[in-house]
């Protein structure tokens, strides 16, 4: 305790830091239990699927089986067509994410800084947000043809809309008191932007980037599933049409793994960049 004895001395007595928060007891073992429950469910579902196929209740021709899907994965891993499809999808995703997210962040930040532009154009973005964006697919095909381009365009569109909405929300969340500090200390608008507004909006911007990843991927794959003649989506469509259900499912699994991998790399990066929040 720093008391009156400090009065008159050169320095105030150094107070102790508050104890760092520790993990609540039981949390770890709860997480472990939850994991086992999850695994048990998955094993049960897969076993049930296999048994239903085995006993002839389900027709393997239409629904495949866990063992068949598992067997299909190593074959796909060396199938040049599948490898090329994964490459095409990743490339299209990178392009869609890059275009949609960068435009989205810029537009979101501009809306956050300029209330006139926001008032004028934000409703249009909200309109885009509510319209099911798949209605644009046929138009995009007309504009961009059947190759990878419509997938990129559709992914970019989806990413853009979601990024803008999240970034604007993030900009709104920068507390006025931080801007007041900037003003009281005569901060230039550049300093204010880089030291206050941008880091203050970081949670929203990061959420926006994550939505950009997710929606960019969704857009690319949906476009490939329905209109493009390239990428994983297209290949899944071909496999399904040819009743290669095991291949279709194996490819779907690969796709899921890719998204999960991207997600975990992302959340690691985010945690590093926003260390101050933990």
């Amino acid at each position, binding site marked *: 305790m720093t008391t009156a004895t400090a*009065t*008159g001395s050169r320095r*105030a007595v150094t*107070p102790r*830091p508050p104890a760092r928060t520790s993990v609540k007891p039981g949390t770890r073992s709860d997480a472990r239990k939850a994991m086992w429950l999850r695994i048990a469910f998955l094993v049960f579902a897969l076993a049930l699927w296999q048994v239903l196929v085995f006993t002839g209740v389900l027709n393997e021709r239409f629904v495949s089986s866990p063992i068949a899907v598992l067997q299909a994965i190593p074959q796909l891993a060396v199938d040049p067509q599948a490898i090329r499809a994964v490459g095409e999808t990743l490339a299209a995703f990178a392009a869609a994410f890059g275009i949609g997210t960068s435009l989205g962040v810029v537009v979101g930040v501009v809306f956050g800084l300029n209330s006139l532009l926001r008032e004028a154009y934000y409703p249009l973005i909200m309109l885009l947000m509510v319209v099911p964006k798949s209605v644009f697919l046929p138009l995009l095909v007309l504009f961009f043809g059947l190759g990878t381009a419509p997938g990129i365009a559709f992914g970019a569109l989806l990413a853009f809309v979601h990024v803008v909405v999240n970034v604007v929300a993030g900009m709104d969340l920068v507390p006025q008191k931080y801007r*007041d500090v900037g003003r009281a200390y005569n901060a230039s608008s550049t300093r204010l932007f880089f030291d206050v507004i941008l*880091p203050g909006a970081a949670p929203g911007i990061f959420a926006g980037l994550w939505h950009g990843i997710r929606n960019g991927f969704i857009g690319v794959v949906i476009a490939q599933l329905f209109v493009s003649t390239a990428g994983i989506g297209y290949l899944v469509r071909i496999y399904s049409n040819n009743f290669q259900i095991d291949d279709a499912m194996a490819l779907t699994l690969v796709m899921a793994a890719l998204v999960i991998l991207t997600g975990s790399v992302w959340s690691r990066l985010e945690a590093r960049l926003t260390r101050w929040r933990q």
Partner: protein
Amino acid sequence: MSLLSVENLTVTYGAGTKDELVACENINLSIREGEFVTVIGPSGCGKSTLLHTMGGLITPTAGRIAFDGASVTKPNPHNAAFVFQDYSLFPWKSVAENAGMGLRFAGGSKAEAAQQAKEQLAFVGLQDFGDRYPRELSGGMQQRVAIARALALQPKVLLMDEPFGALDEQTRRNLGTDLTAILSEAGQSVVMITHSLDEAIFWADRIIVMSARPGRIAEEITVSEPRPRQLEFMTTPEFQEIRVHLFEQLEFHQAEAAARAKAAA
């Protein structure tokens, strides 16, 4: 000599509209070099408006603010630096960065800001906490950082808006006695808004009592006890006398405001 002076100041919000609100009316006040002035008054009496106008954050509707004789039209933290009620430290910056941020905003170089931050953090007793983030510090410690941030500009006046308002009684008192020493040594003039009678008296060379809205200066009380003061000062007859007087004054202004609100309704 008068350092910062408030001349015939009136601040009206929404002038000319039906929501017109006179926050401060015809206020005259001058702060001398090295003087500690506390401002107390019923809530909503325009204390904060007065302080913000003195710091150049609000433009006067009538009258003017002068610093060393020159009109104040925008914040100049080298003259008068703010300490806010809720610390307002940037959670994404380390304690040392926060302490240097005011100077950085005001145009100081990175090296200069780091040097000042280090010195001022040591001055407020937080030399070992520069690498921490604000969330790791207690409220009292965070407010010290905010004070260090203001002191880093070596301002001639500190403008403090209820700096201890968000702290509990115990922390307030400890921080209060520590800061008595710190601020006396730093030698700045200080204008501090407070809700606490004890704080208003304990710190002040001069207490400004404001009336309910529209805020006017109702009374000025001089506290003769030399600073820095020990906690024992609070038990002296002078302290007690002023306290009783202040209490009655505030009750009166509060009751007056309530009666006026009732009449208006």
